[in-house]
């Protein structure tokens, strides 16, 4: 065990891999070449169709012990990963690792195949029941949680060699050109799949919407696709774009949004060239509404909106408030429709979005980002992975990537959830290190990190309710009391990998 720089005890190895303890967000430098894969030469000009999913698995040469991936742009509407694992199991293939861009609640159907040994590990974040059971020790299956940028990095560097990528292709031709813009399973941007298409050893496009050649615009080109296969349905359209993208009506949420907007205004970045990222939560959208009004009022022409893109961002683009949207995933139907017709709404890869190991990710150009939190602490660390019982339940997403990239990262979080205080002495799990978090905004006040003294002074000058983070903690605890700490076993069941590949925290099995 080694203690990393944020005080967490990290084992030397996990699931056979040697681990690097986290030290800081910036200094780890890669010393390697990009991953390689075999050059192929396909001379035929006919169809790459191999039949159904089972045929595609056989054609891909998938064998025991290999790693597969899918993309998560179909979110909780995804049928592909569950079907794929069923077919892999039926073929008698065992010991498969999953390195998808994310595993969602809908994939709890994989649990029997984990018990059977068909699936023996996750090289990616896992949401929902699988992760919960792993946390309880009911399932034995190592999980390495990676951020969006970190996952792209792990494929690009070859740390995670994906043997076969099975990529849901909502609009696809028989020679393998595809995009996510149209069809019954349209999901918009294929930002995550773009990485797999470039780096997996074999690439299978899986479609429920085969269209005559050529499928244009080409998102992922024929030149990187080995096989095409057809399935009746890729997913449930209602759940593909199901995120609740509505502004909150909760007065506490609105108060948090108002304070967050005060912070954004006080940064002074809301002027021509302003760049911004926000999520899909009700509070984030309420902040976006304030930002839109500020930009309208001051006649600001922003440079870009980034991230998972919602209809709110689309409206702002169409209103001329931003020059472009950079879209790694579409969160609602309006975003899907927009990316298919507006050239200023640009599909970007997860690598371009957030990989720390390239010549500059898009997050590096962000002025402000609004981020959520499950918990925060007095060192500005943020937990988005584990919930109040200590179970791993959520992925990191782009949280630590955007926090590290943006000039000012603003975490919005109610001060109390249920009966629990949300500013604590120490978060249960560190997902995003405090030194990359600029401001924590709750309905009880705004805490500014000491590394932003000018912003703090400006907010105080503007009469904003700025409080020391410890004062905020005390005020909240005066209402809630101090919760009893969660008790953990020694056994490490999952890793929280920082975006650069070092280990910032681990998930230990929760005591029953």
């Amino acid at each position, binding site marked *: 065990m080694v203690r990393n720089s944020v005080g967490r005890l990290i084992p030397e190895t996990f699931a056979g891999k040697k681990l690097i303890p986290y030290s800081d967000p910036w200094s780890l430098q890669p010393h390697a070449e990009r991953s390689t894969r075999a050059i192929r030469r396909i001379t035929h000009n006919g169809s790459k169709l191999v039949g159904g999913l089972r045929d595609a698995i056989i054609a891909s040469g998938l064998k025991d012990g290999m790693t597969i991936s899918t993309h998560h742009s179909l979110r909780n509407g995804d049928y592909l990963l569950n079907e794929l694992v069923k077919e892999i199991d039926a073929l008698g293939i065992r010991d498969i690792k999953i390195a998808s861009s994310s595993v969602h609640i809908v994939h709890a159907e994989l649990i029997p195949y984990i018990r059977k040994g068909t699936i023996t590990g996750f090289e990616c974040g896992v949401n929902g029941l699988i992760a919960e059971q792993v946390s309880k020790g009911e399932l034995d299956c190592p999980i390495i949680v990676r951020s969006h940028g970190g996952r792209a990095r792990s494929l690009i560097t070859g740390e995670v060699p994906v043997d076969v990528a099975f990529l849901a292709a909502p609009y696809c031709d028989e020679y393998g050109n595809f995009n996510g813009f149209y069809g019954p399973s349209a999901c918009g941007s294929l930002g995550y799949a773009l990485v797999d298409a470039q780096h997996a050893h074999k690439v299978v496009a899986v479609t429920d919407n085969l269209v005559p050649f050529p499928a244009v615009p080409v998102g992922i080109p024929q030149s990187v696709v080995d096989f095409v296969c057809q399935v009746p349905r890729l997913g449930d359209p209602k759940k593909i774009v199901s995120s609740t993208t509505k502004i909150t009506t909760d007065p506490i949420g609105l108060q948090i949004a*108002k304070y967050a907007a005060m912070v954004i205004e006080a940064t002074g970045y809301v002027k021509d060239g302003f760049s911004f990222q926000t999520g899909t939560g009700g509070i984030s959208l309420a902040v976006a509404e304030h930002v839109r009004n500020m930009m309208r009022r001051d006649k600001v022409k922003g440079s870009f909106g980034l991230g998972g893109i919602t209809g709110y961002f689309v409206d702002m683009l169409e209103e001329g408030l931003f020059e472009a949207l950079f879209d790694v995933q579409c969160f609602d139907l309006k975003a899907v429709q927009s990316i298919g017709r507006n050239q200023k709404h640009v599909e970007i890869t997860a690598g371009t979005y957030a990989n720390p190991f390239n010549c500059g990710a898009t997050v590096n150009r962000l002025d402000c980002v609004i981020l959520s939190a499950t918990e925060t602490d007095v060192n500005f660390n943020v937990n988005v992975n584990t919930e109040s019982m200590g179970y791993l339940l959520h992925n990191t997403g782009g949280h630590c990537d955007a926090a590290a990239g943006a000039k000012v990262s603003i975490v919005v979080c109610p001060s109390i959830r249920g009966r629990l205080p949300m500013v604590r002495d120490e978060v249960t799990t560190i997902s995003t290190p405090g030194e990359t978090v600029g401001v924590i905004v709750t*309905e009880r006040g705004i805490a500014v990190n000491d590394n932003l003294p000018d912003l703090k002074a400006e907010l105080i000058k503007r*009469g904003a309710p700025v409080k020391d983070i410890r004062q905020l903690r005390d005020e909240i605890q005066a209402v809630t009391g101090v919760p009893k700490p969660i008790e953990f076993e020694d056994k490490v069941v999952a890793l929280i990998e920082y975006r650069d590949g070092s280990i910032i925290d681990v998930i230990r099995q929760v005591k029953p």
Partner: protein
Amino acid sequence: MADYKLRRSLLYVPGNMPSMLQNIPLFQCDAVQIDLEDAVPLSEKDAARILVRRFLDNYKNRNKEILVRINGLDTKWALDDLKTVLPAIPDGIRLPKADSPEIVEHLDTMLTEYEEELGLQVGFFKILPSIETAEGVLNAPKTAKASTRLIGLAFGAEDYTATMEINRTKTGEELFNARMNVLWGAKAAGIQAIDSIFADVNDMESLRKETELIKKLGFTGKCMINPRQIDIIHDVFAPKQEEVDYALEVIEAIKRAREMGTGVISLKGKMIDRPVVVRAARVLNTARAHGMVDVVINEEDINGTE
């Protein structure tokens, strides 16, 4: 001079909801009215009373005026309400169904007894009576002078329209006469006039229009049922920068006039005399409460010296 305590926004908070009570310190309204009356179901009257007492006992650094709306004096709960909450020292009582001056006098007497018992100065607890029936409206001018504890008259349009057997509309024509009687009563007694709630929390545009209307008529504040309404109400009641600038010029002009030995002067072609000065003083005192100016306007500025 009437007291210039700002009461633009008075938020109702149900007394039986711990999750809402705990948020009282957080909102930027001028006052809250913790409700033991209509918002609390009959089965929870006792529990709510105890909960409110506990909350107030623990709410040490009070950052807004706290009124408790007790049950009507004609109900069996009113006495227990007072007995339970007054030792936690709210600022005052919102008295429902204040149909006559006698009802206010009755509460006044009871409050005096509690003040003596609690060792407080007599007159500490304020009263904000609800004028919310036809009878209440008719008696409003007398009710307004029934006790020195009164901080204002509060018009209750929901109950009023019910007693009138009419519907409340968003434009509020049906409330006009009642509002005026409440206003005249309050102004004649030198106390504030507080308007009714606006029930549709999703219709911010109509809320704004109604608030603009009642401000124009002379109300100085409005009750609310949702914190989302605070910002619009404050926005409407905030003096406009032009009004503040003009008021400052008026005060300067009248000071100049007095130096010249007169009580009347012309400013940009308009005559400035005492009523104009009084209005300017009110604007500046409100502006000061909004943090827009630091000047303090006193009696001497308005009336001059003898």
